[in-house]
């Protein structure tokens, strides 16, 4: 089963999404900020990262950039999660190295279809 790293600082939202995705059969690992995320991604080698963009310590864009700069984690696809998807946000996400984006509040089915699309594309 695919392993998903969820980077989210809001406890309630993080816990909720973990439960809902775990229920759909994903293997969930979490990080609560950017620094944390870099370490977890290196150690756990997830199949995909769901990255909240407004993070404390190291924000989502910077974290994504560092993930993509590191040989060990560069191959892992990243889906950006933003509260209000203005075009500049979206473009900033792509510029930082994100592979896709989705807007909050999460529609679980749409998010799952995006996760699956990315995992299948890479595994092919």
């Amino acid at each position, binding site marked *: 089963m695919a392993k998903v790293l969820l980077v989210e600082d*809001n406890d*309630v*939202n993080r816990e*909720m*999404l973990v*439960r*809902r995705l775990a*229920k759909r059969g994903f293997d969930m690992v979490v990080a609560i900020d950017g620094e944390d995320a870099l370490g977890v991604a290196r150690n756990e080698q997830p199949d995909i990262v769901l990255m*909240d*963009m*407004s993070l404390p310590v190291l924000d*989502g864009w910077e974290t994504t950039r560092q993930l993509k700069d590191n040989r060990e984690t560069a191959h892992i696809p990243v889906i950006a999660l*933003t*509260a*209000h*998807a*203005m*075009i*500049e*946000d979206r473009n900033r996400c792509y510029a930082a190295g994100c592979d896709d984006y989705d807007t*909050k*509040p*999460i529609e*679980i089915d749409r998010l799952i279809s995006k996760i699956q699309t990315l995992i299948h594309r890479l595994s092919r």
Partner: protein
Amino acid sequence: MAIFTLPLGILVRQLVFEIDQRIEFIEKERRGLHYNRLLRNVLEKSLAYRSQTHEVVTKGDRSIASLVDLETQIESIFQGIEINERRDSKILKTTPNWSRIQATWRFNRKALLQNNLSPEELYCLQSGFITDIVKQITHVGDTSNMILDPDLDTYYFLDTLITKLPTATFLTAEIRDLPKVNCISQERDPEQHLFLLSSRLDQSILSIAHARQTILEQYPEANIPTSSYVTTVQSTHRFVQVIEQLPLDRQVNNLDLQKQSQYSLDAQFMLYDAVEPLVQEKLSLRVEQLKARKSSAVIFTFLVLFIIISIYIALTLNWLYIRLLDRRLSLQYRTASVLAEAQSLEWAIDRILPNICQQLQWDIGELWQVTPINGEIKISCVKNWQRSPNPRLGQRADLSADKPSIVSRAFSQKQPIWRSEVMQYRNALIYTSRTEFHEFPHALALPILHEEEVIGVMAFFNRELPDQSDEQLTTLLAVGRQIAQFIQRQRISQELSDAKEVAEVASRAKSQFLANMSHEFRTPLNAIIGYGEMLHEESEDFENTVLTDDLSKIVTAGRHLLKLVEDVLDISKIEAGHMRPYLEEFNISLMLEEVVATTRPLIQKNKNAFVLKCDPEVINIYSDFLKLKQILINLLSNAGKFTHGGLVQLEVMREIGANQTFILFRVKDSGIGISAEQIQKLFRVFTQADDSTTRKYGGTGLGLAISQAFCQIMGGTLTVDSVVDQGTVFTVRLPERPTNPSPTMPISEVNHG
């Protein structure tokens, strides 16, 4: 002025000069006449004297006792002549002759007294004397212009007086006396000589009669002393006849002859006495007329001159008035144009004050502004302009209302203050260097009034006494009013911009607050909706129908609330003017796919058919991707919401206009439709077509307002066309490519979480 008066003056001077010359001419005649009057008397007396002398001497009685009376008479006439001589000798040039006459008189008397001369010799001496008098009469006639008299009547009268009568008298006396004495020239035949004399006398008398005749013909109304003329002519004629009838030897001591000669002489002197006053009268009448003419000419001239001067003065005053008016208007005009351009009072005053001072001749001009500070009045100098800048005058210190200054006085009395006293107010004028005020003793301060409130003071100082006319004041007060209006306008505009600043700060704060709030709302809503969905799924798994329904309601309500938060955020941004399009080029089909994916379930929920028609020419658009998507989703979900078992269509087509190409997105439905009345309120914030629709169909009531605002932001329009119970068509019309794309200003989002 001189152009008019100079020719007039010359003309009048000429006229007066001519009249004066004629008067002088006549005066000369009159003096001559007067002089001759005396000579005539001398002639009369000396003729008698000669005849008496001869009688006395021939009788051997050489005592002169009987002659004394005549001598006295002659000498008294001499005294009269002497007076005239002294006065008129220069004009009449009588002196040489007069001296000779006097000398001859003295010599003759001496000769008579010495008694050593024969009667004939004495007679001859006295005849020489008489000849001299007759000559003098003619001479005076020449020198006194009498012989040149221009009028015919007086000319003939005068001719009679100065030549004909004296000649006739002389001849009459000669003819009478010659036979008595034996002193007729030896060479001549005495009889022939007498005949010659008598024919000359006849001629003289004839010409006198002729002259009278001529005057009578020319001047029938002339007052001629006819009887005197007739007597003279007749008596003399008879005398000549008597002589011609008598042989020479019988003439001596002939009584008839003696008598006749005396008649004739008397008549001649009478004629003289009759004509002379007549001429005098005529001449003085002529002088009177000339004097009257002269004074009327002078009066006329003064009248014309007066009129010319009056007109000149009137014109000058009028011109001065127009010039003053023009100066005032031009000053006001320039002030107005400066004030119209001015951004600040300082800038305007820098230009207005020099202009005023130069136009109205002030050495120093100042503008003071009145500002209330903490209940106290501060009067501060905005501008001090000096014709010749003097650094020693320095800065003007601020004043208060009770300071003894002309500026403060104009402020507190609310009226213009003139000051011309030199030293008294020196202390009142507060420059840092007080001594300078010796130089500018004259001052004027005017309050600048706005609605009875003094908002400034204009002050002017001068070295010389300035123009203190009402016009000066009127002009300055008018300029003052203009400045007052400007100051007031500045104040109001400052207040407005302050108020605007406050409002903008408040508005920004509101927008910020709303943005923050919506983010803060959204985070817990995420959890509510997320957990709601999760529990809903789980309760479905457990087939707990009651719980599933309830949880489904929580999720729906949560989503509605979320939508509401987002719409409120959009509206607040639109109202604050912060909503700007993010323009980019994108593929329309791809966008439509996303739109349809979102809205198809909603449309189909009410058992509606959905048709998408896209013109194949429609490919890309340069617009705001997200906003367009939001508009279309809103319109399609509305269509789906208000249509049941009908048809919802989305048509996309290209419209090529004259200058611009548009893309039309047309959302058609066959739903309940909207009435014309409802359409009016359709795009207003928080308004749905009907209040009940909110309850029946849900929705925030903000969607259409937001959609329309978005269309406008992107340079397009959103229009609606509807028939109740038939359906509604919403048309979004956006430029394919904005003609003048404004640079995109991304809205800084507060929230990225």
